[in-house]
């Protein structure tokens, strides 16, 4: 196991910023809980993006100021949000029409593991003592056109999250298109993990050592 120094590479905010660059103006986007949520703040201001939250809102805005919150206006992470002018509310079945029907352009999720073929594991460690909880993740990866992942490259105890095959229970098979980690931007390519971009100061070998499957160099 090779430990990763979290003081080098991209910070959580920088990972969100890098992912945000890949969201075209006019997109309909669903952001998962955690680092993905941060992406909304980072999208260049000349691009208008519409945010969907699966609990029934299209046109989600930022967190409210403390005095304007409504416990009945929340996101999928159950945190209070706002609605932009031009928003729409709908019920849960209609919300998943948007997801399952392929109407959401991009979703960005966290990950426990991603395999070289784009399998995603992000809902359970398979620990029989843990309470299993899946939420909308399986619907999102099955329905959204483009699925991106933002994740630390390795777990806190230094194990690679980019693997040959996921050992954790899957969320979906062959669903991830691109991964933003603290070390690099990596696509799921025909030859496996395809390096797209390295974080400043990070070398190819450093990433390869921390990736548990073939990593194809840029231009490779």
């Amino acid at each position: 196991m090779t430990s990763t120094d979290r003081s080098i590479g991209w910070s959580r905010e920088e990972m969100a910023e890098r992912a945000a660059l890949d969201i075209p103006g006019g997109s309909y986007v669903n952001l998962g809980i955690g680092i993905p949520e941060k992406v909304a703040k980072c999208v260049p201001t000349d691009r208008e993006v519409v945010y969907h939250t699966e609990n029934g809102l299209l046109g989600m805005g930022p967190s409210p100021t403390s005095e304007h919150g409504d416990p009945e206006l929340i996101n999928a992470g159950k945190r209070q949000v706002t609605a932009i002018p031009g928003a729409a509310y709908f019920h849960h079945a209609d919300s998943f029409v948007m997801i399952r029907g392929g109407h959401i352009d991009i979703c960005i999720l966290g990950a426990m593991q991603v395999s070289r073929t784009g399998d995603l594991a992000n809902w359970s460690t398979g620990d029989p003592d843990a309470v299993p909880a899946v939420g909308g993740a399986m619907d999102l990866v099955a329905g959204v056109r483009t699925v991106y992942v933002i994740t630390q490259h390795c777990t806190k105890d230094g194990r690679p999250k980019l693997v040959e095959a996921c050992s954790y229970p899957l969320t979906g098979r062959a669903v991830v298109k691109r991964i933003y980690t603290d070390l690099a931007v990596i696509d799921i390519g025909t030859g496996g993990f395809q390096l797209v971009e390295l974080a400043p100061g990070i070398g190819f070998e450093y990433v390869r050592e921390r990736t548990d499957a073939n990593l194809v160099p840029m231009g490779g």
Partner: protein
Amino acid sequence: MIDKEISTLGQAVADVADGATVMIGGFGEAGSPIELIHALIDQGATDLTVVNNNAGSGEVGLAALLKAGRVAKLICSFPRTAGSSVFPDLYRSGRISLELVPQGSLAERIRAGGAGIPAFYTPTTVGTPLEEGKERRTFGGRDYVLEHGLTADFALIKCLRADRYGNLVYNKTARNFGPVMATAAATTIVQAADIVEAGELDPEAVVTPGIFVDRVVKVENPAHESELIARGETYP
């Protein structure tokens, strides 16, 4: 800035290709996007598959599109309308094919198409001639048939008010097939009597959220089929 408004009806339907499947909203004349249909006639696309609950009246709107020979196949629940011989003539002379679908199955097939559901079971048509060719299956002691989701290349829809995001509200029973067709087409084209500022539509009352809409064109005083027919109009 997102702005789905298109200046002209012609631009709105410019890319409908020959052979396309086109869902057209409306139940009888209520909700029929006559101006968009007339623009499609002008545009010239042919060999179309059209999905609509009916087959048009008189020789305007949908009936005019049929009469112009542009429609190879109609998917429909009730292609019989008082006062129109366009579809019956085409049908009897074998110049159009018809897929007859019960109204509820038609609506649900369109919804399924938009919802990413490839197929579902329904009790409708069991034991009738329209069951023919469908898989039958028993659930809980009752028989059902398998119906498939329906999608389209384009949907042409009429609404009352829209905003730049493509959020829509409708007028009364003109709503009918519009909201489900908007979800089921790759490109949804809407004619709106009014286009308002973002935020003017109550977010609790939006019927079609903008994610389902691609283009909105303003048609301030849309024609009513019955009034055109009463005036003896035909199109083109």
